[in-house]
């Protein structure tokens, strides 16, 4: 299987300006040595907590953020080496859907202008009527009535705006769409509509997704494979079903157990991790997870665990991968 | 916090250097100089003029003059006023003091009235009191300083209750220190009131909107939810936060105040920097103009620095980061 997207040793570091004379003091390692690939038509899920670098990773792939090092090849072309108009032309192949349904549409443009802009940039239609026909088609594709093409974004609800954003991305017929938390700002009853829509579109057009979210259940539902990110690093990667059934990394185990469960019968024991999500400015040495890890040992403080293949297609970055966290310790609870 | 303040302090130096350089350049670009007028005076010999020019490096290119000027400043010398025929230093500082006095009292009056009024308007939002305040503020914002000063002058002339201009009475030097003090205050009050009135409306409206903003904040609801009294919620929780944005606009208000003072000084014959600037301008006394502009800027920059200081004191997020 030849990969559509191949990311190798990607690093995105930001300098943090601090101190009196604005010298570079520290770097945020937002994305630190990340490698993965996505096959055509596949959905890869990316899950992690705020500040773990998942959004930066998504933006780096579409070159909205400049990576510090690494390789990103799409369809065999290294897009990190491209600049200017060559890059702009290549942008047809990969698109992005954003989180905020309110901020992601220009409030001063009509739906038709928003979707049409995508067509105009890449000159995808050759006549006015073809352009309009295509816009109507796209709106129908995402479940919007083309009657409303002349409306402005402020007249639509969150879910409808998200559909407009999807139509804009679809307009250029991309092979890959980076979905950056596309449903987390939506109401529960609307979330499912968008998730289903994304699934339908994938079936129809064979688009590959990198689906970023903090909600493990959503990611697991939509993805074939899932990556778990913690402090700029991939800590576990596997098939979706496998990762839920047999999580290897303790962080993944805690994450799974923390998902609130609707089913009252399933009494999964909640693993409560102590402490806060650390700031990526000064990540802990050794395994980045060790200060919060219930099974950490001395070795974890010094030695960075490599992402290794535990079983077929199941990767984890933990010295003690596979060890189960048994005890649910009461986080930070002190007897008073 | 200290590094923040130190940084701000260091920031002032290039700013003042830049301003002086800019003004110096502008003055150098000005057609003619003091000596153009002087040389037309048949009573002054060309030698005298040449001597004077040499003494003040006036034959040199402007940047050389600038360096001499700068060197003198570092020695506390503000050059020589051609028109007044005295060293500028004493003159400048006397006028600076007067401008400072005028602006300072105007500021005290303006903020002293505007802040309570703004709070009152915000607390009584949409009441007749609020509407009344906002109407008065509109009028206040729209009366130009020039007109206000002229009206004050007219008022003083018509009633005789206030002196028509000037900073002290002619017999000032003959008075006892106590009388001198009252004489100064008597001369100060009308210009300060005029200046304050021009500034007041803006501050009041800002205060009102800042407080209304903070009253919408979630921590205000949270404070109410804890059972704190409405007065406590407004005056402790909301007001304490509303002050921070107000301090950041202090700089703008100060800049407006200094420009207002410029006008008031010239109309009401208050011997401050603004009046000196215009006098020096007409006399083509270019060093003096540069001195005045730099001094006025320094006043503003120092004022802003003090505002930053107060902001850092008031807002822990700035103090501790």
């Amino acid at each position, binding site marked *: 299987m030849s990969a559509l997207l191949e990311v190798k040793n990607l690093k995105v570091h930001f300098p943090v300006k601090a101190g009196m004379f604005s010298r570079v003091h520290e770097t945020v390692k937002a994305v630190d040595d990340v490698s993965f690939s996505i096959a055509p038509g596949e959905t890869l899920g990316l899950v992690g907590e705020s500040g773990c670098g998942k959004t930066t990773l998504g933006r780096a792939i579409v070159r909205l953020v400049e990576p510090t090092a690494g390789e990103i090849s799409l369809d065999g072309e290294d897009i990190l080496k491209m600049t200017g108009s060559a890059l702009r032309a290549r942008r047809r192949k990969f698109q992005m859907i954003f989180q905020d349904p309110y901020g992601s549409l220009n409030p001063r443009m009509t739906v038709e202008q928003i979707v049409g802009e995508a067509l105009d940039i890449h000159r995808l239609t050759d006549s006015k009527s073809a352009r309009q026909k295509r816009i109507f088609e796209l709106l129908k594709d995402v479940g919007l009535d083309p009657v409303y093409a002349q409306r402005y974004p402020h007249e639509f*609800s969150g879910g409808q705006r998200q559909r407009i954003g999807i139509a804009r991305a679809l307009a250029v017929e991309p092979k890959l769409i980076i979905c950056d938390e596309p449903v987390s700002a939506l109401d529960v009853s609307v979330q499912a509509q968008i998730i289903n829509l994304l699934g339908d579109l994938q079936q129809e057009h064979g688009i590959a997704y990198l689906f970023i979210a903090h909600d493990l259940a959503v990611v697991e539902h939509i993805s074939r494979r899932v990556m778990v990110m913690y402090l700029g690093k991939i800590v576990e990667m596997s098939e979706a079903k496998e990762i839920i059934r047999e999580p290897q990394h303790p962080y993944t185990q805690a994450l799974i157990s923390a998902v609130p469960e609707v089913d009252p019968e399933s009494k999964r024991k909640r693993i409560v991790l102590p402490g806060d999500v650390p700031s990526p400015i000064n990540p802990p040495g050794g395994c980045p997870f060790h200060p919060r890890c219930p099974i950490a040992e001395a070795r974890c403080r010094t030695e960075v665990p490599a992402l290794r293949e535990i079983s077929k297609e199941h990767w984890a970055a933990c010295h003690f991968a596979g060890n189960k966290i048994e005890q649910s310790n009461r986080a930070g609870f002190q007897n008073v | 916090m200290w590094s923040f303040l130190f940084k701000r302090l260091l920031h002032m130096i290039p700013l003042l250097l830049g301003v002086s350089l800019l003004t110096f350049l502008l003055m150098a670009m000005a057609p003619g100089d003091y000596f153009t007028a002087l040389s037309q005076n048949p009573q002054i010999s060309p030698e005298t003029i040449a001597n004077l020019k040499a003494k003040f490096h006036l034959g040199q290119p402007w940047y050389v003059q600038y360096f001499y000027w700068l060197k003198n400043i570092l020695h506390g010398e503000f050059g020589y006023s051609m028109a007044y025929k005295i060293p500028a230093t004493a003159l400048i500082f006397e006028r600076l003091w007067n401008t400072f006095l005028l602006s300072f009292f105007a500021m005290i009056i303006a903020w002293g009235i505007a802040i309570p009024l703004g709070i009152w308007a915000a607390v009584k939002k949409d009441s007749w009191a609020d509407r009344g305040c906002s109407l008065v503020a509109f009028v206040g914002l729209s009366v130009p300083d020039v007109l206000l000063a002229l009206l004050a002058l007219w008022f003083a002339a018509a009633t005789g209750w206030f002196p028509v201009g000037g900073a002290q009475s002619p017999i000032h030097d003959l008075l006892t220190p106590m009388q001198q003090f009252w004489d100064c205050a008597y001369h100060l009050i009308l210009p300060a009131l005029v200046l304050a009135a021009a500034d007041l409306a803006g501050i009041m409206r800002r205060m009102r909107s800042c407080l209304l903003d903070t009253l919408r904040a979630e*921590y205000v609801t949270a404070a109410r939810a804890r*059972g704190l009294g409405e007065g406590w919620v407004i005056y402790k929780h909301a007001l304490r936060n509303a002050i921070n944005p107000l301090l950041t606009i202090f700089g703008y208000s100060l800049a407006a105040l200094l420009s207002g003072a410029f006008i008031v000084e010239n109309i009401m014959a208050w011997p401050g920097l603004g009046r000196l600037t215009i006098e020096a301008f007409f006399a083509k006394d270019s060093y003096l103009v540069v001195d005045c502009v730099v001094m006025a800027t320094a006043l503003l920059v120092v004022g802003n620095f003090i505002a930053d200081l107060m902001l850092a004191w008031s807002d822990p997020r700035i103090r501790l980061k």
Partner: protein
Amino acid sequence: MALLEIKNLKMDFGAGADALRAVDGVSLTIGASETVCLVGESGCGKSVTALSIARLVATPPANYVGGEILLNGQDTLKMSNGELQKIRGGVVSYVFQDPGASLNPVFRIGNQIKESLKLHRPLTRPSATLSPAGGEGRGEGVRVLKNVITDYDTEVIRLLKLVGIPAPESRIRNYPFEMSGGMQQRVMIAMALASEPKLLVADEPTTALDVTIQAQILDLLSELKRRLGMAILLITHNLGIVGDMADRVAVMYAGQIVELSPARELLRRPLHPYTKALINSVPKLAGGASRLSAIPGNVPRIGNFPPGCRFAPRCPIAKPECSEKIPELLEVEPGRFVRCPFWK
């Protein structure tokens, strides 16, 4: 007598012709030491209902049209400002969604907690610590006897320890911005507990937090409830939280309660079509199903609630008559109320 009894609460935003009904006939009771979840999507009126208990919604724009909110038997809608201030914090405390915004940024957290203590539990001289026995309500019913404290700082530190803040002795001098979101929410909870309320209203307390931090806070809430035994009204949009926390659940849609039921039964066997659809539209871990059963259409906005049954336009089993008459909330099984005549 229930601790809290909301009877047929009706609230508008605006008045006269512009009035938009935000809460339309909500009735809910909470017994002492009971945990009730109020579940619903944005704009369904769950937050304003909760805020109304201590009358924290500004009037205007809000306008109470009808109903009663009986807290310890007294109607908070009829209370004077003075009485309200006593029950706020004193009987009912609040924890809000965004802890960063609900802590005052310019005061140290210790002082903010102390403020609550001073108000609701003023210092008693050690000689007077012998408290009169067993008085729940003293006279007016809104006054509740509190545990006696002799030193504010000690009590603040005790509270911070109670909510699991490490090294509280040094933390009391922190400003809110120096803490993480999870720690800030703990401080908010400590502040809410400072006055020893009978009812804790938590309005989406974990929505702004990360998953692992959310687990910590939920864990903390259940533990505190176990120890302190206050009643909790938990507002959330997340049905998953319900199963973990609640004794009973009220599901709100477009300003009305559509289903009210014991929590486990509601999750196991939802009766109202909206509840059913809501549960089915949430992806479940290892759920398998390739397609979620989505609810068509959009969440109605305030002022645009459809006539008749408000869920009818999105309801899979709607009949023509559903759009004509608003159905009643009826008890169909013991303890289970549904606002749908076709629940079977």
